[in-house]
């Protein structure tokens, strides 16, 4: 079972925080195929958030094929994340390291780089749902 938490100052939409936490648990293996996600009521009574937010997060996960809602029973994990993805991450990380080195040589300081990175992220994720354009 997963226990959700909220970072109210992060600026990240609440339903996205829930989505990320499920994905993280899938990567770490704390959630495995067949596990049941907490019901909307359970999440809502723990976090004091709108039930529709939970349902929206679950719909998003369902759309990505990670979980499956079974009427009357609950929402269950379909597949895990990780393995191949971890290797991808290592490669991406190496590329990012290389980018940071080049930026430093070009005279950018830490703040410049962070501004550039967050601008790129904002552009990439404009319009809400994550993953669509980059997939």
């Amino acid at each position: 079972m997963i226990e959700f938490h909220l970072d109210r100052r992060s600026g990240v939409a609440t339903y996205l925080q829930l989505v990320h936490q499920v994905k993280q648990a899938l990567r770490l293996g704390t959630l495995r195929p067949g596990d049941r996600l907490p019901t909307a009521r359970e999440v809502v009574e723990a976090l004091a958030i709108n039930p529709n937010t939970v349902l929206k997060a679950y719909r998003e996960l369902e759309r990505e094929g990670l979980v499956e809602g079974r009427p009357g029973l609950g929402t269950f994990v379909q597949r895990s994340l990780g393995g191949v993805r971890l290797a991808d991450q290592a490669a991406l990380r190496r590329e990012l390291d290389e980018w940071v080195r080049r930026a430093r040589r070009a005279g950018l300081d830490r703040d410049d780089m962070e501004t550039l990175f967050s601008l790129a992220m904002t552009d990439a994720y404009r319009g809400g749902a994550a993953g669509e354009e980059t997939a």
Partner: protein
Amino acid sequence: MTAALTVTGLSVRHRRGWALRDCSLSVPAGRVAALVGPNGAGKTTLLHTVTGLLTPHGGTVTVAGDVAFMAQDKPLYDTFTIAETLTFGRRLNPRWDGAYAAGRLAELGIEPERKIKELSGGQQAQVALTLALARRPGLLVLDEPLANLDPLARHDVMRALMGEVAERGTTVLISSHVVADLHDTCDWLVVLNGGRVQVSGDIDDLLAGHLMLSGPDELRPPAGAQVIEESRTGRQVRLLVRGAQVLDPRWNVRQADLDELVLAYLRSPEASALPRLSEVGA
């Protein structure tokens, strides 16, 4: 989408002028609607009209099902015991879930033989909320439910409320002058300012429909955009716009958050974001 609450052309006059003027709004069933606005905007007047405590001078209020109301100071009869307070609920409401009410208060550790005046503010709020919820209303109206509560009690009240919405799909209308209180709990927004409805709609749609633009001040607002608020500092201009496609790459674009959106509207009383007339009552 059926409306749990429809208000059309509502007007209420004070001794000193209009408290509400030609207010129209609707809240779809199953939504948690935030009614926000500065102090004196007419929030309480609107809620009192919706709950029948006030007779409007004009306009209509239509509610699907029973309305339960928790007033701002959470009034209860001081000298009643908890058990008597629940008897009050049972005697005055043909639809009354006594088992639920007793169970919920037992869960909270509030003993039936205690008197209302012996309870803490947070416990009184819980009793008042239980009294409203055990009626199994179609529409639950709460006037500043979090005012005068400590952070723990606020969280408890909101948790109970959200649990109820998840369980029964109750439609809720909550007023507050603190937008931050309603951030994670509400999915529908009504902004009331100076007795008029300025914004009414789904929060996600509203956020998606508004953009915060910043850029050099020689830029013109994008074509077709409704500029809600404009502020200039030095050579930079910041705009909150509605319904625009931003093509000019010199604009730095991001989504507005709820506080920014509400504040922008409140600072520009002439701007409004309302559904078209045909959508009201849809």
